[in-house]
């Protein structure tokens, strides 16, 4: 169907990707921060306090940003793909067998 894209199906525009992409990405579990060891310690207050740091589900993000969950999933997965760098993997080709990664060698 001409002009009927996945954007239309998800109710998302490129402006919305622009506006929410980075925030959704950071709120999701793509970026994780854990303080202390709350799961192992069963420290439920900390578990709850750290939910956003450890990554929210699309449903939880949707509630916070007043979006539909399908919109969040669409924007998150699109943003993940746009950020994905296919060239990094070849760094591994020089490692192992006694050689370790050194950032200074990348330049």
């Amino acid at each position: 169907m001409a002009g009927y894209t996945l954007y239309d199906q998800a109710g998302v525009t490129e402006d919305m990707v622009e506006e929410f992409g980075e925030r959704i990405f950071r709120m999701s579990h793509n970026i994780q921060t854990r303080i202390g060891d709350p799961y192992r310690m069963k420290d439920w207050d900390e578990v709850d306090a750290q939910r956003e740091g450890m990554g929210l589900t699309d449903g939880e993000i949707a509630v916070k940003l007043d979006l539909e969950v399908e919109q969040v999933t669409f924007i998150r997965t699109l943003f993940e793909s746009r950020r994905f760098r296919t060239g990094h993997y070849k760094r591994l080709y020089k490692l192992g067998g006694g050689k370790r990664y050194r950032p200074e060698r990348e330049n």
Partner: protein
Amino acid sequence: MPKRKRDIDPEEAKKKVLEYCLRKGALAAGVADLDAINRIAPAGHRPNDMMPRVKSVISLGVGGQTQGAWTVPAKAMAFFGSTEGRAYTIAYGLSFFIERTFGERAIYTPPDIDPELGPRVPLQSLKLHAEMAGIGARSLAGDILLHPEYGYMYFASVFTELELPPDGPMRENPCPAPSCVSMYRSIGRTPCMKFCPVQCLSGTIDEDGNQAEMNYDMAACAEMTQQYETISSVMNEVMSAASAEERESLLHKPEHKTLWYKMSVGSGGLLAQCFECMRVCPIATQAPLADPIRRLEAAEDAAEEAAE
């Protein structure tokens, strides 16, 4: 529903279940605290979202690769480094063992992604199951679970309607190892942080030598494992190429052609993997029972001691 209700002693049943795991090659196994998992896992990813009447979550871990594997180049280890298939085989067998032994329903828990949510969201967190079963603790290496005796394991889970008494999480977290604390005190980073090829790990250690903060850029790590969006990203780059020559060189450059090769031979279940943080981790590589040679030596030491 099973036709008959059997009189099962949960402690006895647990013993048989864990014995099965160890007999089939698991290094460690435990029963996770279901209430704790439900308290932590988000809605949609709790055990009863997959198995409505689940009563117990069993987690088992198999050892990582051989000691020799750590000596090979990363590009070779990427083909064979993970041993998760062995864990899945044991879990699969365990689900059948439970049904035929106790007459209660059981499932092998798929370790796979949630197809509605894209390739970065699992149906269930096997890591959380293992942590709550007390067979691993979160490390500074992006929360990879470590065990003080077995180092770095691969985990699998089984859900069952059989009632089993749960274990608790590990009392101590073996990460950071003392040598990592020393390195952190001197350069502000631990080995896993220093040698990660995309520098996606950072964190802090407190005055007592415990983890204070763990930061993990999972998206950057995903670029090194290639199991996520590599193929579609490469295709997108190819289709957006400005010229026929550029398209041809993108499609046919060696690392991209290798992806087609890996897909066609079904290489290793995953397209590629990165082990660099574990390669330098003293717990993963030097825990007392971390690899087959260490386990052999420990068995020999024990036999010698018993003979004295």
